[in-house]
C-alpha cells in the first residue's frame, strides 16, 4: 500500500489549498481588525478577482501567451483592479454604516455579497467558465509522488505575498498604523493618523490578496463560476477564526492548517471527500467551543 506517498501527496494538496485559504483569510482578518466587520462579501471579492484575472489573461494571451508571464500579469492587474473595487465597496457600502448598529453593517456585507454574485451570474448566465492556461503539465516525480510545477509556483507566489504583507505590517509606518487602528482609533487620530485612509489601504490590500488567490485558483483548478466564492469565503472565515480573528499570522497559519486538515480529511476511511466540508465546519464549531480566541488570538474578550 502506497501509504507514504499518499500522505505526502495530501500534504502537497493541502498546502496549495491552504495557500488560497490563507490569502483570503488575511483579508477577512485585516478588515475585521480595522472596522470590526466580518466582511461576508470577501469570498465574492475573490470570485471577482478570478473573473478579472481570467479577463485580463484572455485579452493578453494573444500577445504574451497564457504561460507564467501572462498569468503573472493577470494576477497583478486583478490585484490592483479588485483592490480598488474593495476600496469602492468600503466607501460606498460600509463607510456610511460605521456609526450604525453593528448588525446593519453585517447585513450590508451580505447585500454586497449578493450584488457581486448576481452581477457575475447575469454576466456569465451561471455557467462555468473554463480558465485556460498554458502552464505545462511538468512536475517533480518522486516515485509515485507527483508535485506539479504549478503547485510549487502558486504556493511560492502565495508565500511571497504573505512575506510582503508581513514586512509591510511590521516595518512600514502605514503597516504599524494599520495595527494601531485595530486597537484604538481615537488614539490614532490624536497621533495624526488619517484613520479613514488606513481603512481604505486595508481594503485595498485585503481585496488585492483575495484577487490574487482567485486568479491563481482559477488557473490551478481550470474553471471559475459566479458561486465559487461562497464556500471558500466561509472556509477562509473558518481559517481566520482558527488562527484567531484579527491576527495576521493567525490567518496565515489557520489557512494552512485548514487546507492540510481538509486534505487529510479525505484520507480518513469511511469519510470520503464529499464529507470534507462537514469536516471543516465541525472544526470551526470545535474551535469556537474550546478556544474561541483561536490559536493566536488575544486572550481578552474582543471589543465587539
Amino acid at each position, binding site marked *: 500500500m502506497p501509504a507514504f506517498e499518499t500522505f505526502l501527496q495530501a500534504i502537497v494538496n493541502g498546502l496549495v489549498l491552504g495557500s488560497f485559504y490563507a490569502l483570503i483569510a488575511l483579508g477577512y482578518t485585516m478588515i475585521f481588525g480595522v472596522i470590526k466587520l466580518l466582511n461576508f462579501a470577501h469570498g465574492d471579492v475573490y470570485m471577482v478577482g478570478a473573473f478579472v484575472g481570467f479577463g485580463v489573461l484572455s485579452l493578453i494571451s494573444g500577445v504574451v501567451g497564457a504561460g507564467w508571464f501572462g498569468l503573472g500579469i493577470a494576477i497583478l492587474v486583478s490585484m490592483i483592479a479588485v483592490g480598488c473595487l474593495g476600496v469602492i465597496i468600503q466607501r460606498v457600502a460600509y463607510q456610511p454604516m460605521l456609526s450604525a448598529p453593528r448588525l446593519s453593517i453585517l447585513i450590508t456585507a451580505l447585500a454586497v455579497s449578493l450584488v457581486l454574485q448576481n452581477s457575475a451570474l447575469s454576466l456569465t448566465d451561471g455557467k462555468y467558465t473554463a480558465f485556460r492556461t498554458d502552464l505545462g503539465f511538468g512536475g517533480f516525480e518522486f516515485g509515485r509522488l507527483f508535485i506539479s510545477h504549478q503547485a510549487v509556483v502558486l504556493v511560492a507566489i502565495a508565500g511571497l505575498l504573505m512575506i510582503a504583507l508581513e514586512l509591510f505590517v511590521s516595518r512600514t*509606518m502605514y503597516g*504599524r*498604523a494599520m*495595527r*494601531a487602528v485595530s*486597537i*484604538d482609533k*481615537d*488614539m*490614532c*487620530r*490624536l*497621533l*495624526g*493618523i*488619517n*484613520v479613514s485612509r488606513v481603512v481604505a489601504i486595508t481594503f485595498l490590500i485585503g481585496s488585492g490578496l483575495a484577487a490574487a488567490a482567485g486568479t491563481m485558483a482559477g488557473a490551478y483548478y481550470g474553471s471559475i463560476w459566479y458561486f465559487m466564492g461562497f464556500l471558500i469565503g466561509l472556509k477562509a472565515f473558518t481559517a481566520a477564526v482558527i488562527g484567531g480573528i484579527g491576527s495576521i499570522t493567525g490567518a496565515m497559519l489557520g489557512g494552512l492548517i485548514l487546507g492540510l486538515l481538509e486534505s487529510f480529511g479525505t484520507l480518513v476511511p469511511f469519510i470520503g471527500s464529499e464529507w470534507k466540508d462537514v469536516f471543516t465546519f465541525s472544526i470551526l464549531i470545535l474551535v469556537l467551543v474550546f478556544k474561541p480566541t483561536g490559536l493566536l488570538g*488575544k486572550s481578552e474578550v474582543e471589543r465587539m
Partner: protein
Amino acid sequence: MTEPVLRVEQVESFYGKIQALRGVDIEVAPGQIIAVLGSNGAGKTTTLKTISGLVRAQVGRIHFDGEDITRLPPHEIARKGVVHVPEGRHILKGLSVQENLELGSFTVRDPAVRRERMADVFERFPILSERRHQDGSLLSGGEQQMLALGRALMHGPRVLLLDEPSMGLAPKLVTQTMRIVKQLNEAGTTILLVEQNVRLALKIAHYAYVLENGEIHNQGKASALAEDESIVQAYLGA
C-alpha cells in the same frame, strides 16, 4: 501679553443632547503652562477633546496660531502640532514600546528627525530604551505615562494637551511626572494641563482656569489662585 498660540472662544460642546461645555474661553500664551482645574464632570476632559477635535464644538471657535481649527478633523489638528495625550494614556496594546514611539512620529516625514527625536526620548526616559522591545501595555503605570509623553514628544508638539498625567500613579511618581511636565515646558513646549492634583498643578502652572458645570468659574495667575481660600476649600479638599 503675547499673542496666544491657542485660543478657545465661547465654545459649546455636546455629548448627544447633553451639553458638556457652555461657552468656554481659554487663552494659551506660548511657552506657558496653563492649568484647567475643576471637579469631576466639570468639562475638563471635554475641553481638551474639543480642542483636539475628538468632540466637535457646536458653537464657538478654536484658533491655533491664528488659524481656525474648529472644523478640522483630529488627525489634521494633530498634524499642525496640537498634541493631545489623553486620560488613561492609551498605550497601543500589542505594539512594542519602540513601535508606540514610532507611531508618535507618524506625521514626521524626515527619518533623520525621527531618529533624533527617538534618541532624545530615550535620553530623557532611559527606562523606555531598556524596554523598547516589550509590549507597551505591559509597562508599569509610571512607565506607561513616560511612554505616552515620549510618544507625544516624537511628534514635535507646539502645544501639548495633557489630561490627568498623574492619574493612577503612586505619590512619588506623581511628583516626578509633574517635574517632567515642568521640564518639558522649560524646554519650550507650551502646555495645557488638566490635573486632579490641584496643589501640584498650581505649583507648576503660570495661569489657571477653574471649570464648573461646563463654564469657566474662575481664572487667574496660578500663584494667586493657590492662595485663594475658596479655591483651596473647593478643590484642594484641604
